[in-house]
């Protein structure tokens, strides 16, 4: 980790000194323990602020659409790099304007899970090899990273960046044997009432702060449907049906675009299980169109294209009907 951090700083310094980029987007030490916050570095003297640890959980691709038009270098994990590819495919950013500092990622540590393990407030946290140590006023604790990874990191297939101009660290092999949708399939098996109830309960927690939207690299619309007042798609209050509609459509808009980085869920202050929605969408996209987001810079998003042979077993096509034949 220290090694990676040192190399990030070196590369950042080189890029800024050579004026190859105007801006570096990376992580810096945050003011709270167990966190790292995004940082924007313009000056080569400031590169020492850059850090790399197991708390660098944000998806930095989110910021790229906001600085489009400038030459930017961005620190990217596997999931971030897939978001970058998706943004390039959608024409939001230009490949030649972005320098990807790719870092194979071992997974990020779930701060909430650790916070729940200890009594009292954590004042200091550190990382050593595969352990995280925390300290508070009258307690100390050491946790194995592996047991405290984010759920999205546990089911991550592509730990290494899909695209990178500068690769720091050893590539990690793709984890394709993983049954990444096991949980979704399990959920599908529940009865319709159970599913309905769970969905209602989860969405009922939402306070509509839209942090999920802000954290998501793919939510770059200038005006989100939820903010529209004409047509007013959704009422502004906390009525459960409005919360449900918001989350249904937020997830649906991710069809063929979500890389399952988990940023939405990490940003959520109410700990709503948001990934159980987007994962279902991802699974359907994979089942129907054999598409995974952000792996191929040439492949168009699945909902912008079609094939005449797409599956249509869910549509009344009239072939089984005994009615009159089609009048061709």
């Amino acid at each position, binding site marked *: 980790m220290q090694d990676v951090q040192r190399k990030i700083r070196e590369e950042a310094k080189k890029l800024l000194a050579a004026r190859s980029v105007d801006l570096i987007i990376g992580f810096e030490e945050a003011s709270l323990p167990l966190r790292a916050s995004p940082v924007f570095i313009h000056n080569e003297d400031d590169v020492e602020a850059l850090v790399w640890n197991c708390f660098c959980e944000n998806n930095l691709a989110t910021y790229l659409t906001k600085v489009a038009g400038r030459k930017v270098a961005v620190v990217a994990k596997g999931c971030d790099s897939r978001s970058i590819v998706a943004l390039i495919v959608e024409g939001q950013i230009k490949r030649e304007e972005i320098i990807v500092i790719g870092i194979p990622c071992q997974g990020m540590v779930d701060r909430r899970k650790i916070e729940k393990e200890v009594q009292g407030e954590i004042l200091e946290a550190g990382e050593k090899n595969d352990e995280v140590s925390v300290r508070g006023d009258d307690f100390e604790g050491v946790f194995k990273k592996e047991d405290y990874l984010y759920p999205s990191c546990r089911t991550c297939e592509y730990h290494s960046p899909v695209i990178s101009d500068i690769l720091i660290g050893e590539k990690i092999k793709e984890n394709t044997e993983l049954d990444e949708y096991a949980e979704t399939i399990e959920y599908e098996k529940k009865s319709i*009432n159970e599913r309905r109830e769970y969905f209602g309960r989860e969405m009922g927690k939402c306070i509509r702060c839209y942090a999920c939207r802000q954290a998501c690299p793919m939510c770059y619309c200038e005006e989100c449907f939820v903010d529209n007042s004409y047509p007013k798609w959704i009422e502004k209050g906390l009525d459960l049906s*409005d919360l449900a509609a918001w989350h249904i459509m937020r997830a649906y808009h991710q069809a063929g675009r979500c890389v399952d980085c988990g940023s939405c869920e990490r940003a959520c202050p109410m700990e709503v299980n948001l990934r159980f929605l987007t994962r*279902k*969408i991802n699974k359907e996209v994979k089942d129907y169109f054999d598409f995974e987001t952000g792996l191929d810079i040439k492949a168009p998003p699945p909902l912008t294209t079609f094939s005449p042979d797409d599956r*249509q077993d*869910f*549509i*009344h096509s009239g072939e089984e009907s005994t009615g009159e034949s089609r009048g061709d």
Partner: protein
Amino acid sequence: MKEREPKILAFLCNWCSYAGADLAGVSRIQYPPNVRVIRVPCSSRINPFFIVKALQQGIDGVLVAGCHPGDCHYISGNYVARRKFAIIKSFLEYIGIEKDRVQFAWISAAEGLRFAEVIKEVTEKVRGLGPIRKWGKIRRV
């Protein structure tokens, strides 16, 4: 008390399904009066949010009908629509909306009889499911 009649919202494409409904009408074919028709230029005009919104507002079932694949007036509109429908249909089922509440059909302008049959079938299925259950209280716009 008499059982509440289900309300079905049908989005029909202007070029095929709406003409199919028209044919059913001029041919004097009977079909359940539960259906409310909204004419749209093409099935690809259907933003899945229309469906979600209709269900949120208390509609018991939604039918979206368009031209048969290959017959689209706009060449490929229904192919694109089909991809959207595939996702939204299984997604709504996943979160607990019965799958028969949201249905899709290809109905050509010559299929007046089939239009009536589809409406009958959809109405019967939705009737069987009963009124839609709301997540919260509904608000009328």
